[in-house]
């Protein structure tokens, strides 16, 4: 048992793995689900209802929300939520700003400047007085009001941004104070910064060009890593498991790649050297499509990994309530514990892979001409 030789890591791992169980395992009833369920038949058995509730709870956890709910207790009508509301900022032919508490935990329809809004599964839809939503809006983001709210995810992004700023700003300052030697918590992060530089940036981009991309790579790495780790805390945030966030990160990578790309890069896309001219014409659209697929796969990979991790972890925790006996619950507890440790690894690994692939794309964008010899 190697793990016992590292008591600190063991305790941290244990804490992380136990925390979600404490915090997330309250099978609260999703309000939207209850309203629909109440209209459903009564002959659905109690057990099946519970299973559905749990599925609903997991689904709810994965989504963004407009208020920050730490935990809730109580059943159905007299359910109490502990947390704080966040501002809702909407653009729908005019600016609408109000507190998320007006949604009454996603149950109420809010009227602002003659427009009506409601929340379904963490997403704001504009609706009419009776709460009827244009059905196209469910699949087309452009049919919805532009939602600039400080949602839970935005709130966490800001928290992580502030954390990073304080942490690495402090590290930068400690260098000045201590004659070039890191002090305090920076000592832990300095090797990681050097790791990103030596293991990710330099091998993939090259000694010559890596410097101009370092800021982006380091920011992306720590941003994803910290948010992944926050996803494992009992706060119940799932920022990197949100498609909009990962898409934004990938789009930034895509833009930087294409803006900083040199002639050689475009030459490889539109006029592939070393192949017959007909093949070049065939290859050009494929290569062009490839540049779009790359950020798309970046987006999906991070999103899917985080979502999958959360679903599996929470399903196993929910199993504890399904078994409802010592043996079964104990088994799923151990399983959840082990899986949480795995998720900590995955949190770092996904940040590493995202940064690594980003660096790889940057590297292809600023590759020097001499590489072409390999094609002949």
């Amino acid at each position, binding site marked *: 048992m190697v793990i016992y030789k590292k008591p600190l890591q063991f305790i941290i791992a244990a804490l992380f793995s136990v925390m979600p169980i404490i915090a997330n395992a309250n099978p609260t009833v999703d309000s939207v689900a209850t309203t629909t369920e109440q209209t459903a038949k009564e002959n659905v058995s109690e057990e099946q209802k519970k299973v559905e509730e749990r599925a609903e709870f997991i689904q709810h956890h994965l989504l963004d929300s407009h208020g920050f709910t730490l935990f809730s207790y109580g059943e159905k009508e007299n359910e109490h939520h502990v947390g704080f509301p966040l501002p809702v900022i909407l653009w729908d032919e005019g600016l609408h700003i109000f507190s998320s508490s007006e949604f009454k935990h996603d149950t109420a329809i809010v009227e602002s400047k003659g427009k009506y809004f409601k929340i379904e599964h963490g997403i704001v839809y504009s609706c009419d007085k009776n709460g009827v939503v244009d059905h196209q809006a469910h699949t087309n983001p452009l049919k919805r009001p532009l939602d600039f709210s400080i949602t839970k995810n935005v709130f966490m992004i800001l928290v992580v941004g502030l954390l990073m700023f304080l942490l690495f700003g402090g590290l930068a300052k400690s260098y000045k104070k201590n004659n070039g030697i890191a002090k305090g918590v920076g000592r832990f992060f300095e090797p990681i910064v050097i790791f990103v530089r030596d293991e990710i940036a330099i091998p993939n981009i090259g000694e010559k060009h890596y410097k101009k991309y370092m800021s982006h790579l380091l920011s992306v790495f720590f941003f994803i890593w910290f948010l992944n780790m926050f996803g494992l805390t009992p706060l119940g945030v799932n920022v990197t498991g949100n498609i909009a966030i990962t898409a934004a990160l990938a789009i930034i990578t895509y833009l930087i790649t294409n803006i900083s790309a040199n002639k050689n890069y475009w030459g490889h896309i539109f006029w592939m050297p070393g192949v017959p001219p007909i093949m070049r014409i065939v290859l050009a659209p494929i290569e062009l499509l490839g540049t779009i697929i790359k950020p798309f*796969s970046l987006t999906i*990979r991070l999103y*899917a990994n985080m979502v999958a991790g959360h679903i599996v972890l929470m399903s196993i925790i929910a199993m504890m309530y399904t078994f409802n006996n010592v043996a079964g619950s104990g088994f799923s507890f151990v399983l959840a514990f082990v899986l949480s440790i795995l998720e900590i690894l995955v949190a770092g690994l996904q940040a*590493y*892979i995202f940064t*690594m*692939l980003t660096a*790889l794309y940057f590297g292809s964008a600023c590759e020097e001409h001499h590489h072409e010899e390999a094609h002949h």
Partner: protein
Amino acid sequence: MGTIPNLVGAGLIVIGAGLGIGKIGGSAMDAIARQPEASGKIQTAMLIAAALIEGIGFAAFFMGK
């Protein structure tokens, strides 16, 4: 949840991606066993290859689902 053909397709994708990643992992193990001193480089290459397959697998999975 999608229709049954969609789900079967998603399952097939998962099988394919799983086989691919398993093959990569196995080959990497072989390579590390053969050249333990190059394990760092092999691991990096393995992770990248696995991540690329995984990305395509996930993309196809979500499209199918």
